């Protein structure tokens, strides 16, 4: 019996966003990276186009982070030098891009000045030639001082800057508009706030093709199913013509996966959970794989071993499965 192949026809597609700028575009990157453009659900090549493979970023901090030993081992030689750290992430571990997190700006931590932060960004831009993501320390007021300086320091480089939230998006949006960067719009696993934030940012006249959605991924075991349903609705919205949801999606997998007890506790504490190093890698990789299945275009990781696993996974997912 012949099986009828039911295919969906979508009217729209996810918008493309390009990160980085080459010399002729006014920047210093060796190449640009374009994400998005999908005209179907993730990896359903037989139904529509998935023109760009998802990209993987490794996280770099401006100060040595309080990460798990297992992670720190990979970066021990470069923890004091974000430029060297970024270079290692790209050259040794094969990251498509670098996500620089300016933890040092935190007023409860080192409380670095905007100029110091801008200096770090310059350093990293010199050290690597891939497009750059820069994320603030998370303190809204401080980020509103730091990020404009970062945007200025990176002028011409077409950075991806974050993180804009519904409560705090105006300063960052303005900085991105003035210096022509892209913006990460983050919502707390809530499609309505996600859409509303995109509207608010676009109402400041930010072009829609310079916004990337961070839907706030839950890690494996921590609400990952709920994130999936939100991300699926975002994609369906985009495919159905909702221009305020038709942005590429970024997910912060390293950060979320390592917040989970399952990635951190030693085997001695939960013998039945098995070897912790293996488990931690898998926890991060599986969280990332889930993000891809749900529609992520940029995945931020911490563990180079997780990156390696995901890289192979993406290759398989991108094999055409057209009818």
């Amino acid at each position, binding site marked *: 019996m012949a099986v009828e192949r039911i295919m969906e026809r979508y009217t729209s597609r996810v918008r493309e966003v390009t990160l980085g700028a080459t010399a002729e575009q006014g920047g210093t990157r060796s190449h640009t990276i374009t994400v998005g453009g999908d005209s179907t659900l993730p990896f359903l090549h037989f139904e529509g186009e998935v023109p760009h493979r998802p990209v993987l970023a490794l996280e770099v901090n401006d100060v040595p982070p309080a990460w798990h030993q297992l992670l720190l081992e990979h970066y021990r030689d470069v923890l004091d030098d974000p430029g060297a750290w970024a270079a290692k992430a790209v050259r040794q571990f094969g990251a498509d891009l670098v996500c620089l997190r300016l933890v040092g700006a935190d007023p409860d931590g080192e409380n670095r000045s905007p100029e110091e932060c801008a200096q770090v960004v310059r350093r990293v831009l010199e050290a690597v030639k891939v497009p750059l993501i820069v994320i603030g320390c998370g303190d809204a007021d401080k980020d509103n001082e730091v990020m404009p300086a970062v945007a200025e320091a990176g002028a011409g480089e077409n950075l991806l800057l974050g993180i804009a939230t519904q409560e705090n998006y105006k300063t960052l949006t303005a900085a991105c508009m003035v210096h022509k960067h892209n913006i990460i719009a983050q919502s707390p696993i809530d499609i*309505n706030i996600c*859409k509303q934030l995109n509207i*608010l940012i676009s*109402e400041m006249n930010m072009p829609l093709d310079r916004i990337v959605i961070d839907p706030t991924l839950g890690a494996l075991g921590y609400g990952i199913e709920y994130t999936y349903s939100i991300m699926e609705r975002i994609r369906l919205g985009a495919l159905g013509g*909702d221009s*305020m949801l038709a942005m590429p999606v970024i997910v912060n997998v390293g950060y979320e996966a390592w917040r989970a007890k399952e990635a951190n506790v030693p085997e001695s504490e939960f013998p039945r959970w098995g070897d912790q190093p293996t488990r931690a890698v898998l926890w991060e990789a599986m969280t990332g794989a889930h993000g891809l299945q749900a529609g992520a275009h940029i995945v931020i990781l911490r563990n180079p071993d997780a990156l390696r696993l995901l890289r192979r996974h993406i290759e398989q997912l991108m094999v055409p499965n057209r009818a």
Partner: protein
Amino acid sequence: MILVGERINGMFRDIRRAIRDKDPGPVQHWAKRQEEAGADYLDVNVGPAAEDPVEAMKWLVQVVQEVTEVPLCLDSTNYDAIEAGLRLCKKAAIINSVPADRPKIERVFPMAKEYGAKVIGLTMDRKGIPKDAEARTALAMEIVAAADEFGFPIEDLFIDPLVLPVNVAQDHGPEVLETIRQVKNLASPPPKTIIGLSNVSQKAVHRSLVDRTFVAMAMAAGLDAAILNLDDDALLDTIATARILLNQDVYADSYLKVFRSRRR
């Protein structure tokens, strides 16, 4: 919802005069204004008073297309006028309309296919408009069958169950809603449904309130399109809200603003 702007119609005095005097001003004013309000199509009707409907339709189509790229809905009982208009349309138009009357069906569907136009089919025949939903649906079925016979794509067929003024034909209201519901089951894919919304409030008081209440009810029944007054902000807000409530658009606090600006 596919929104068809009703305003370029010789029933309105300014348009009637514009046609008579060959003055493009009012026509182009309403073309632009309805486009800005989010029209997916512009209804174009020379009105009953036009001396030469064919020439009037040609003139309207040309004049409108000078200022907007919004596709047109050619509204006439004179099929020569419609065909003359179709010849000039730069984008696929809608033919408004054909009743369940064989000679007219035989004229309209081949013409629609030739020009790649969509078609509005009316649930009426030579005997007029039946009252109950079953009879209306039966006429819709005739039109669907005819479309099928002529190889016309059902997705491009709009069934109009013919809304009548609430203050003289109140009992038709629930029948129209039921017809919309039933028509969506006539074929797979089903034909689309459309109404001439402003009819319902003809000569009634509180016209906007009546229009927007009825459109919400019709959308709940499965309405796909309406020919309506795009100048009525409260009506557009209701349509935006109904879309949200039917889960057709994702809710965001700014949903009204987004709906209003979706064409800009």
